[in-house]
């Protein structure tokens, strides 16, 4: 029936791009060698020492108002004050700075300039009126002309009087 030998679950289900190996299928979980147990005992000793220091302060009859956590303070220092001293301009960081720092500024400057130049061009050619947010168009686009109240005035639809910009 089965032409190839069956594989164990651990061999069937390998980690891929979307999912990592679950702990149950990792042979290292079932490893009970003395080195691993010694490493776990050391980590447990460190955690127990830290917990003992914390509980000593917490159960003190006159506890300090706030118990400091030095690890948190180090983490916060690293995130806020240690950024620039550990920065070095490399080709990669210079490239990233130029693309994400200066690039968007130039991009938006270009966007605004082209848009305003386009509007200026339309104003010069008298196809734009201040205070009205769409260019003037011909009445061929209106199929039903019953609501074009200003047909008598020669325009295809109502337009507000020319006002200054807001």
């Amino acid at each position, binding site marked *: 029936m089965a032409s190839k030998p069956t594989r164990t679950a651990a061999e069937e289900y390998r980690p891929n791009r979307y999912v990592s190996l679950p702990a149950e299928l990792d042979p290292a979980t079932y490893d009970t060698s003395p080195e691993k147990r010694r490493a776990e005992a050391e980590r447990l000793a460190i955690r127990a020492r830290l917990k003992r220091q914390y509980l000593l302060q917490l159960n003190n009859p006159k506890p300090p108002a*706030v118990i400091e956590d030095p690890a948190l303070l180090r983490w*916060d220092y690293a995130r806020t004050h240690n950024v620039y001293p550990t920065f070095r301009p490399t080709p990669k960081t210079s490239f990233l700075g130029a693309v994400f720092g200066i690039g968007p500024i130039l991009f938006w400057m270009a966007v*605004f300039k082209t848009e305003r130049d386009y509007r200026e061009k339309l104003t010069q050619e008298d196809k734009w009126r201040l205070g009205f947010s769409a260019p003037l168009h011909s009445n061929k686009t209106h199929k039903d002309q019953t609501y074009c109240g200003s047909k008598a005035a020669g325009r295809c639809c109502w337009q507000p009087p020319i006002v200054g910009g807001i």
Partner: protein
Amino acid sequence: MLKIILPMTMLLPVTLLSPAKFMWTNTTMHSLLIASVSLHWLTPSYYPLKNLTPWTGTDQISTPLMVLSCWFLPLMIMASQGHLQHEPHERKRMFISTLIIIQPFIILAFSTTELILFYISFEATLIPTLILITRWGNQPERLSAGIYLLFYTLISSLPLLITILYLHSKTGTLHLPILKLTHPNSPTSWTTLLSSFALLMAFMVKAPLYGLHLWLPKAHVEAPIAGSMLLAALLLKLGGYGIMRITLLTEPVSNFLYYPFLTLALWGALMTSSICLRQTDLKSLIAYSSVSHMGLVIAAGMIQTQWSFSGAMILMISHGLTSSLLFCLANTNYERTHSRILILTRGLQPLLPLMSVWWLLANLTNMALPPTTNLMAELTIMIALFNWSPPTIILTGIATLLTASYTLYMLLSTQRGTLPTHITTTPNSNTREHLLMTLHIIPMLALILKPELISGTPL
């Protein structure tokens, strides 16, 4: 004019000569009295300039800022009582004197009609602020904060001084009403371009504009509470106000100057709002939100239409009140835990429920909830910018969204969630803190009912 400036200057002998028992009471009460008298500046008038003296004149864009600065002196004094409790009496006196020395210069800066007097008072506010930050800050980083503040402002204001003197040599006067009537410098040459650039740069650094804003998070974070309130509520507005005044002098310059400043301001509003989402330090978060809001003010100041100036004025006042309120709230946290780290002071709503009311109100106004004046200002500025160029709505819209998200993040981190297990005792909120928050909120709520007072339009 003198009935405010003289009492304010005389507050200095009041501080220096009061007996120790009455020093706080005297200074707070007298500054509150001056603040209530200063409200008369807001009365409507048809004249372009009121309260005219040879060198000062108030109009609708200077009076709200002056009333705000008079209002803030008692608030700053009250806010400092907490961290100065254990200092010897001499040092408390020196601290209050430093605060009082700044006030006449700010009033002069907002009310003067001469450019040189404006420059002098603009620079004069720097030194007491430097003293506040470097002498009374709490961390060793305050020294670098003071240096950044001082040198950023000074380097950008030296070209301003030179251009003002050049303008005086060319036009013979620096009186703002007369400068409005003189013929503008006609041909667009390198000289006019550089002079407009130089005139604007000092205020761009002060406001601050996004690329030049590095001094602000440092200075705000390292300053004591009164310094943070002063910086956030008043000194940043000096930049905005300066832009609004100076742009009448740079009128016929090439329109190209708009683009870099506007883009930097709007993109900066977006960028600093996103930086706020990644902050671990509470005061730093509020400082970056100040940069974001002032970016909108700068953008509105650059396009110079009636609506945008109005929006910029309302935003400056509302942001001053809101930002200062947030700094006071952050300070109440700091006084209890001596740490500004956001995750260390979380879950405060069950602990301090009354203070959480103020946290909620402050965050609601910060994210421009209707019907507050913050919303009126943001909408006005967004509409004015949309009229200038429709693609700006993308930037302002995303900035508003990010503002709401980081404000929500700040509220949820400080108020909700599990209580930190390492805080064993917390002193309760005292009346002084509640009074401080009330005095911040009441102007904001009252202005919802009559925003014409701060809108910079003739009433």
